């Protein structure tokens, strides 16, 4: 670790409050950062989360706001420094690449003058020297020096971005704050700008803070990242780690909304809108969080370590773990032979996660599912639902617990029972609500899986239903208790593509809005690639590979996984 004095920038209890509004709007709240030389830090978050206010606040550029806390740059507290003293730090020590817009450059001054004028102010060089320096800077950012006679309106967006970078580098700052460097740029200019920033940072060795809502930019340019929400840091860690394995529902929501993360996955934005910045008592993300509980609204969560170099501000310690299985082993005895169906399998399913369990038939997937659901007792190992050991089916005998949908709908639903009775059976067992409540919940569940709800249908016996209908009925029965975790064993195999798509979208919706989780067992890798967040690959009773779906599908490591994918993705239409 670097010791205290060596940080280039240390920010303590930093806050920004716009007191011109009534009630005052708190744009940034209680931020603490330590930034060592040469480091690159990314700040991510939705628009209006306080990213830009934070950057402007560091530079003392907020006129109408109250800036609190300490901004210690090389041992000097910049906050509350008189304007005149502050001017010496601006640009010479800390420079900003402003968010690109036509208005960010003065329309009546030439590009050359605007790039060169800080040099004149800070170093008092002669015009000829400044001109040489301007030409050098423009070459460095890949602009033809002849453009220095041009006015801002004559440049394209990409060129303007380069001018902004050149301008920021004019006084060789030690700290460069870059605000949304690639918004509104086409892909080619965007990549060029990113490469250029990377190269310049290597060459000039400045410390960099990058503010962006584009996670691709953050991934490319930064080592460390922090996610901001309503002015507070809610997650912070190494970029590679946070982007692969976010521990806060908000950060995961940002990732799920990013199209450039994994091309096969759907886009899901975060529901609801951010609170207006008026300070609340509890967790600011509480109203939009998919795992919120009433207790979250009492106190602000503090930023705590949950893993090495990974901090999260959440009352539940980040995204909850729903299911945890440790070293599960299951053997079948076949006369003299002993078949190990599940061999020391460990698994973890978090709130709001769809985990696909893939593998060929007979690899032990269904056995594992049945052990997890408590149908079989494992020979060894144990499983936990929400940190409580699974035994005696407590987890299925409750609302919001865990449910399983078996592979074969014909044996899963009794053909001598009526449709409605099958659907509401779990509710009848736990005696939930009144009879009418249960009927209503049952009908709702049927509707959710696109089954008819006319009384004629409700009174039909199950043997009169088709395979697809029986399968949907089984799913409806599982969903009627509004489970948090669903173990779904090949549940869509008998459905036509349209019903399958509708059902999966419904489940994805539940996942993103309410933190519903699912263990999705399938041998259809197309589907798995589309819906899963994490993937476990099972082969001969063992988990041979597991991880984030994007990683596994892009770069499968195990030879079996590779072969499986090769076979599966051969039949693209």
């Amino acid at each position, binding site marked *: 670790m670097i010791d205290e004095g060596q940080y280039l920038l240390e920010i303590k209890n930093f806050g920004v409050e716009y007191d011109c509004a009534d009630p005052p709007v708190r744009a940034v709240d209680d931020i603490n950062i330590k930034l060592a030389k040469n480091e690159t830090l990314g700040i991510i978050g939705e628009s209006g989360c306080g990213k830009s206010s934070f950057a402007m606040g560091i530079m003392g550029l907020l006129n109408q706001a109250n800036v609190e806390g300490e901004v210690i740059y090389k041992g000097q507290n910049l906050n509350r420094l008189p304007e005149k003293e502050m001017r010496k730090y*601006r640009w010479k020590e800390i420079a900003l690449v402003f968010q690109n817009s036509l*208005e*960010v*450059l003065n*329309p*009546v001054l030439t590009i050359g003058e605007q790039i060169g004028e*800080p040099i004149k*102010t800070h170093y008092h060089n002669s015009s000829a020297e400044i001109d040489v320096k301007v030409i050098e800077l423009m070459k460095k950012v890949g602009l033809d020096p*002849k453009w220095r006679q041009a006015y801002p309106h*004559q440049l394209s967006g990409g060129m303007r971005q380069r001018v902004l970078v050149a301008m920021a580098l004019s006084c060789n700052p030690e700290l460069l704050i870059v605000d949304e460097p690639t918004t509104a740029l086409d892909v080619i200019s965007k990549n060029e700008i990113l490469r250029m920033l990377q190269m310049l940072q290597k060459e000039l060795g400045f410390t960099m803070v990058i503010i962006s809502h584009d996670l691709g930019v953050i991934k490319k340019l930064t080592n460390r990242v922090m996610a901001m929400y309503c002015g507070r840091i809610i997650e912070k860690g190494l970029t590679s780690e946070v982007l692969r394995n976010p521990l806060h529902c908000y950060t995961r929501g940002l990732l799920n909304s990013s199209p450039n993360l994994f091309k096969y996955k759907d886009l899901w934005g975060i529901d609801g809108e951010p609170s207006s910045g008026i300070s609340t008592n509890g967790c600011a993300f509480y109203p939009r969080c998919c795992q919120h509980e009433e207790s979250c609204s009492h106190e602000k969560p503090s930023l705590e370590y949950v893993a090495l170099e990974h901090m999260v501000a959440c009352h539940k310690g980040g995204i909850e773990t729903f299911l945890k299985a440790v070293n599960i082993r299951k053997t079948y005895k076949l006369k003299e032979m002993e078949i190990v169906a599940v061999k020391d399998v460990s698994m973890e399913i978090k709130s709001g996660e769809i985990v696909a369990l893939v593998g060929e038939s007979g690899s032990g997937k269904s056995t594992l599912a049945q052990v997890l659901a408590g149908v079989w007792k494992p020979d060894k190992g144990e499983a936990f639902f929400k940190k409580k050991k699974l035994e005696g089916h407590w987890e299925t005998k409750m609302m919001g617990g865990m449910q399983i949908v078996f592979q074969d709908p014909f044996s899963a639903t009794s053909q001598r029972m009526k449709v409605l009775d099958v659907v509401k059976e779990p509710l009848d067992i736990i005696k939930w609500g009144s009879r009418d409540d249960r009927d209503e919940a049952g009908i709702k569940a049927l509707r959710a899986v696109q089954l008819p709800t006319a009384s004629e249908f409700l009174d039909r016996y199950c043997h009169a239903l088709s395979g697809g209908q029986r399968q949907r009925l089984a799913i409806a029965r599982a969903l009627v208790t509004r489970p948090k975790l669903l173990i779904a064993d090949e549940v869509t195999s008998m459905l036509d593509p349209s019903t399958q798509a509708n059902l999966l979208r419904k489940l994805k919706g539940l996942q993103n809005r309410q933190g519903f989780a699912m263990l999705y067992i399938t041998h259809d890798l197309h589907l798995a690639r589309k819906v899963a967040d994490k993937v476990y690959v099972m082969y001969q009773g063992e988990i041979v590979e597991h991880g984030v779906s994007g990683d596994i599908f892009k770069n499968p490591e195990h030879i079996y996984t590779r072969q499986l994918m090769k076979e599966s993705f051969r039949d693209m239409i």
Partner: protein
Amino acid sequence: MKHNRIMKLFEYGLTIWIIITLNFLLPRLLPGDPFLLLSSDNAENEEIVMTQEQRDYYESYYGLDKSMGEQYVTYIGQLIHGDLGYSIYYKVPVSQIILGRLGWTAFMVVSALAVSTGIGVLLGSVSAWYREKWPDKLLFFQMILLSEIPVFLIGLMILFVFSAWLRIFPLSGAMTPFEDYTSWWDQLSDILNHAFLPIMVLSISQMGGIYLLVRNSMTTVLQKDYLRTAKAKGLSQKRVIFHHALRNALLPVVTRIFLSLGALVGGAILVENVFAYPGLGRLMRECIQVHDYQVVQGIFLVVTIFVLLANFLADTVYKLLDPRVNDSGKV
């Protein structure tokens, strides 16, 4: 580009033609004719009533007996030769009378323009910088008040206070009559002494408009992103305000200054009459009273040409100041 320029030229030509035509028509629509008051230096005491024969003679002498169409053609023909006609009342060429008076009006208008612009820009900037604080509130109130009082009323009040009551400045005229100046300096100070009050009144009447415009424009500019950029670069406050802000804030002001020339000339007519200042405004009043068509036409024409010239200058100067207007996109 070239096409544009031709269009522009055509526009100016058309404007001039319309104005010349109006110029020709308007005095002739006045009731009465120039010969009612001819030959009497003071219309009230010594009125000479001409006989019908005399009037016919004069009318044919000045070509006023011809049809309007013929008169119009003659008028245009004269103008093309640069001939503004011959004053019926003063009996000298119109151009000579106008040239003699033009200097005084031009001097007053240009000075008032400079003074009102200078003060307006300064106060407007101060107001914008301290927006919603007491200097702004005070200035705003004062300027609104001043700009709402009609110019002749300000003129009269100032005349009463400074000339009649305090006797600091002369009551009327542009120079002390029959004065022998010992040096050019004496002459200049006498001229300035006479011009001070009229210029002040005219300036005050224009200042409010400029002030409000600068205040508005500056306030907008001060909130622009590029000002935050300038500030972030650590530039001195002076440079931020004068180099970055004012240059942008003055753009609309430049147009306004040139366009306000018309209003200034209008104001000058009133002010000249209040202070008995021997400019074009006073000449115009005199000539309208005696129906001296030729001189009135001449004055209108000269004023028109000046205002158009000002418009043209406004366009040109704006192009020099704002690079965005020259949109050829070349470097």
